[in-house]
């Protein structure tokens, strides 16, 4: 199908971008930076068009659903939301160096999705309980939050590296003050989206199962993630924490995000299980 070809092109584009972003750390050249952003934009465009085509192909098959419904589609979708959030942050902060961490993660997710033999990339019909517009609201907002947290994770790692090595390697990455602001901003965005994601999930569960909260493992882990990030926000806002402690909290938060996204689906039984 044409959609998977486009997604393949996007994967290659992201791989090239990863290599270029890493080289950009060493050759700071404004023109070179503009070329990377251009390639990133083109790859993102390919992916969005491929994703949209997959959506329309599903209608041709008679199933007709947004590509957010199995593990393959989840990986593809969370990749583009991450690139989207990253591009916004790159534009707002005028800093390209974080791409050296974010793009390799995205490329890995895309490559896993298309190459792993265990991941089924067929368009399948949707079981009745997933046929709802709330699927779109719930999954997109959750993925946007995961993406924002991924970017904050990248910034936190860089922050800690700089903290350990001191400001000697200062030219490689942005200053700690800017990193700190980046961590906070992306977590604020992620926290807002996570809240919307949990709430839309609760509304959907209420409509489908007559219960807005049932302590299903995925629900519980999303709440754990929410607790950790709200502890982060209170530590920073109210208790005046700054520096490595908040960066570490943000990394713990992202570990919870990863477990919510992947761990729960494969290790714990429940409504969101891919294994079942």
């Amino acid at each position, binding site marked *: 199908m044409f959609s998977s070809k486009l997604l393949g092109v996007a994967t290659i584009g992201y791989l090239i971008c990863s290599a270029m972003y890493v080289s950009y750390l060493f050759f700071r050249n404004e023109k070179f930076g503009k070329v990377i952003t251009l390639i990133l934009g083109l790859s993102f465009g390919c992916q969005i068009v491929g994703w949209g085509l997959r959506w329309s192909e599903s209608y041709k098959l008679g199933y007709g659903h947004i590509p957010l419904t199995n593990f393959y589609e989840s990986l593809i979708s969370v990749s583009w939301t991450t690139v989207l959030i990253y591009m916004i942050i790159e534009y707002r902060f005028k800093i390209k160096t974080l791409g050296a961490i974010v793009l390799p993660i995205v490329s890995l997710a895309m490559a896993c999705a298309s190459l792993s033999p265990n991941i089924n990339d067929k368009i399948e019909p949707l079981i009745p309980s997933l046929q709802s517009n709330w699927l779109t609201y719930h999954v997109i907002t959750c993925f946007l939050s995961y993406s924002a947290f991924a970017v904050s994770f990248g910034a936190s790692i860089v922050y800690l590296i700089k903290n350990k090595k001191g400001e000697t390697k200062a030219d490689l990455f942005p200053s700690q003050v*800017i990193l700190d602001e980046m961590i906070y901003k992306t977590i604020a965005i992620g926290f807002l989206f996570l809240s919307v994601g949990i709430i839309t999930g609760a509304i959907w569960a209420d409509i489908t199962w007559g219960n807005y909260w049932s302590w299903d493992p995925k629900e519980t882990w999303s709440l754990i993630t929410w607790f950790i990030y709200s502890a982060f926000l209170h530590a920073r806002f109210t208790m005046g924490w700054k520096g490595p402690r908040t960066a570490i909290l943000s990394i713990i938060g992202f570990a919870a995000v990863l477990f919510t996204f992947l761990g729960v689906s494969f290790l714990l039984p429940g409504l969101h299980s891919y294994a079942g």
Partner: protein
Amino acid sequence: MFKAFIKFLTSIKLAVILLIILAAISVLGTIIPQNAPMEKYLRYYQISTYRFMSKINLIDMYHSSWFIFILGLFTLNLLACTVKTFPNLWQMITEKKQGLDDELLSTITLKHDFEIKEYGEEQKSKFIEILSRHLPSTTVTESAGTIHFFSEKGRFTHLGFILSHLSIVLILIGGILSAYSFKGFMTIVEGETSDTITLSGKMALKKLDFSIRCDNFEILYYDNSDRPKAYKSTLTIIDHGKEVMKKAIEVSRPLTYKGVSFSQASYGNVPDQGDVVLRVAAMDAPSAIREYKTATGGTFQIEGTGDWVKVNRFVPDFQMDNQMKVISRPNKLKTPAAELTVFDRNWNSLYHTWVFSNFPDLHRSAQKEKYMFTLANFINKQFTGLQVTKKPGVWLVWIGCFFMLVGFYVIFFTSHRRIWLEITKKEDRYLAILAGLANKNREPFEREFKVIFNSLKDEEKNNTKEDF
């Protein structure tokens, strides 16, 4: 001692500690299976461990008294923190004072002194223009030879704190009210009416004050596929003998009546009951085949002769035991058969026969029969399984969620920014102070402040140039 305890109870520190405790407990709750059958626990734990876990409610922790206690403590702490901060916030929101006194100035780190050569109406409007470009409402006052410019934006950002924290209290109260809710299950056979639900978790029944009839249940499939696309029940609500509501529900499309929601949850076949489709031809005219459909236990009249046929019963897997009695294994469509009795038009019984779908010719050999029957189809009668819930607190939860999102947006994406510009005449010059304060997002505000400062300086430079 008591005071210190109260202080701790209302502190942000306790809030963060409780958040971490709640997170840790929740992790435990996803590792230890909750509300699972006993056998499952015994696979992983000793019986004594299981008894202990059961005693302290580790296997149903989200409903345990200690978990509810922690949630209650969390709610109290939240309320206390909100109440404690409220007077300050309210003052910030309603404050009339806009002047820059020494006390306030000493707490501000973002300030610049500079000098102005000229100050008049022209400069005044220019300064207002520059300040208003960033923070729209600018006021100018004069007192004791000093001119005060004051600009601000986002006063209401302080409401975000109250909204977001009270919203969580609302959600928790809504959750506590769910103690007055019920959750249960009911099955209704197509065509039948019921008003009784089985409460989940307990072996108890509950009667509703209205009843509900299942008119039809059906499964829709994707084209050319055996994958189900929809499970659909057509339900009618009957209240005081009157049909008050009729609705087809599907998964994710529930019906709600008097606060009670009915969601499509399961379905099944009623054993040996349903519609039987028979093909009938008279032995002396085998090519004139007619088709009849009737429910098990029902009758039909054969056109032409006027004879009657009664479908006594249907069995999905026809077998005989050693006393030649017909038995059947339920729910296994292997050798489906129907028992019929044929009557004449005056209801005198003519003969009995069994009709099979797999062996349509079997009955012929038995005796001289008037008709040739074929079992063409059997449409099993189904029942629908409905999840029934009543949650009186759910509206509080949704209102809380809405306020929470509005609160978060206000907190994260708006800030209260204030800028003061004070100009005092000293001999032939004017001394100016520009000071700025933002309650959050200080880094972007610092950049904005720099822009404002530079614009003011540029303005001053332009003025100076004109003078020469």
